[in-house]
């Protein structure tokens, strides 16, 4: 293996990381907040890339994992006092894992569009439960809570400013990226990619394909739940709208626009989409989704590899 491209890759990674670290210090308040939001949606999209890009399963159910992460965090922050950041993470991840396990068990028996449709409908089950179970989830109004402090017991304790929140989110997203990258390059990740390329042959070689798929969905769901926790922390509320399947659809859009199978692509896709929305909403007000939809369809037809598709090999080395 050639060492030089790897070096270039890590230099590129450090430069991007440095730029994102500096972002809240130089950008105005509004754009800094948008940058944090892009990172969170990017994490959600990146988590589903593990399925779409690496395993070849298009999930339309990521809103469920995202939403369960959100409501899990809300549960921890509302029931335990004093509110604890780490407990929120644990609860959120537990909620997402529970949902992911449930969805994975059933949906991985099916392939292609059947998988897509079942994940979609499973996420709607969670939506209906959350929407109608007003006593626990607040129903249509959702739940609001206060942001906990960043604290390590016995060491230090500080309240989140918008800058330190950005850094916290950045650290989590960058860490998740490195973990996901490691997963996709591990023997496990190789099996996932061989399922994508030729499922029948992978099975014939003797890999328990279903088990691999279940683990892949659960891992993906965990990272989606992590994104949900971060979103809950940033916005200090949890609402059923985020469990609705249109969020899953947007997640898929980020992936396709950015380039599937690259992990970074989905973040770029999220950035592209959110910036486009910001830019277009100045001209089209609330109807910005019309041009967004047109651009998306055009990308599906003319640029199926997405924006970063051309550097796919390089990013996966």
């Amino acid at each position: 293996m050639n060492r030089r491209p790897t070096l270039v890759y890590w230099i590129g990674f450090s430069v991007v990381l440095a730029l994102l670290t500096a972002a809240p210090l130089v950008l105005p308040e509004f754009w800094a907040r948008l940058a944090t939001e892009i990172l969170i949606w990017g994490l959600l999209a990146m988590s589903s890339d593990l399925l779409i890009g690496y395993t070849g399963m298009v999930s339309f159910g990521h809103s469920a994992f995202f939403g369960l992460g959100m409501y899990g965090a809300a549960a921890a922050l509302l029931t335990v006092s004093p509110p604890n950041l780490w407990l929120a993470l644990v609860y959120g991840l537990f909620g997402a894992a529970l949902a992911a396990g449930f969805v994975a068990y059933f949906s991985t028996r099916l392939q292609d569009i059947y998988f897509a449709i079942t994940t979609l409908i499973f996420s709607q089950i969670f939506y209906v439960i959350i929407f109608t179970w007003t006593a626990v989830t607040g129903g249509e109004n959702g739940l609001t809570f206060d942001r906990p402090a960043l604290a390590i017991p016995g060491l230090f304790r500080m309240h989140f400013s918008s800058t330190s929140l950005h850094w916290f989110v950045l650290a989590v997203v960058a860490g998740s990226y490195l973990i996901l990258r490691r997963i996709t390059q591990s023997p496990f990740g190789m099996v996932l990619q061989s399922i994508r390329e030729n499922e029948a042959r992978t099975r014939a070689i003797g890999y328990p394909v279903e088990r691999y798929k279940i683990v892949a969905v659960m891992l993906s769901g965990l990272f989606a739940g992590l994104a949900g926790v971060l979103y809950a922390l940033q916005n200090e509320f949890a609402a059923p709208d985020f469990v609705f399947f249109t969020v899953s659809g947007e997640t898929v859009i980020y992936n396709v626009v950015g380039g599937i199978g690259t992990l970074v692509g989905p973040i770029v896709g999220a950035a592209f989409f959110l910036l486009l929305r910001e830019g277009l909403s100045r001209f089209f007000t609330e109807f910005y989704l019309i041009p967004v939809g047109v651009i998306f369809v055009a990308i599906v037809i003319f640029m199926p590899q997405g924006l970063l598709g051309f550097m796919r090999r390089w990013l996966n080395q």
Partner: protein
Amino acid sequence: MGIPLEQVLIQTVNGVVTGMILALVASGLTLIFGIMDVVNFAHGELFMLGAYVGVLTLAATGSFWLALLTATIAIALLGALIYVTTLRPLLGRDPLTTILATFGISLVLQNYALWQFGPVARKISEPITGHFTLFYLDYPWYRVVIALISAAIIAALWLFLKFGKWGIWIRATTQDRVMAQAMGIPVPWVLATVFAIGAGMAGASGVLFGPLTAVDHAMGLDWILKVFIVVVVGGMGNLAGSVVAAIFISLLEAYASLWVSPAQAVIVSFVVLILTLLFRPTGLFATATR
């Protein structure tokens, strides 16, 4: 638990009526899937736009039946347009890309409706206002009429597929696209026609269902999910299967809403779907092929 028999019977009638409308939308979707391998995510939006065309024509002409006809034709043309501009380039690629493309289209159509018609829900008035007495209820004749019209349209589609020249071409294309082309069947036109028929059926059901609900830009969202459930439970591409599944699921939901709120009754159809996928993943009424 004492549920009076009348209520059960009333819910049976309700279930069959909604089931027929659902079957009409679902058979369009399953036709498109079975023949073209296209999962049309925008089907709910075609349904919604059909209802809006109905509202507009009704306002302009005052005739419900003219509105029904106009909506069917307009949405069929729109379907052909969507097919030619966005789906034809995707033919032969992974069916998943068609989900993505039609999802994009549904975003465009839904927000277009919001932009054109605003967020205020419209109403289509019933063309037949008569009632008959069903136990203690005044049951509107119109509901029975829609069930019959839906059944008639589905039956006509079936006859067309079975005996019509284009119908035979359509079935030939389903079996083997390349061979059909070799036999001189104009496959691109056949596919465009199929998409137009499916879309037109969605448009017609939008108008038919309009009087029973409020017409707004988001009505497609509720429907597309139900329709997907029906189509998967019935077996994708299986016309008879989706009709039976539509009635079956609507009946279950109608009975369930005797005990719980309609919003929660949806869970019943989700459960049916899960059970179907567990035990008969290719649909309750799947034939051996596939």
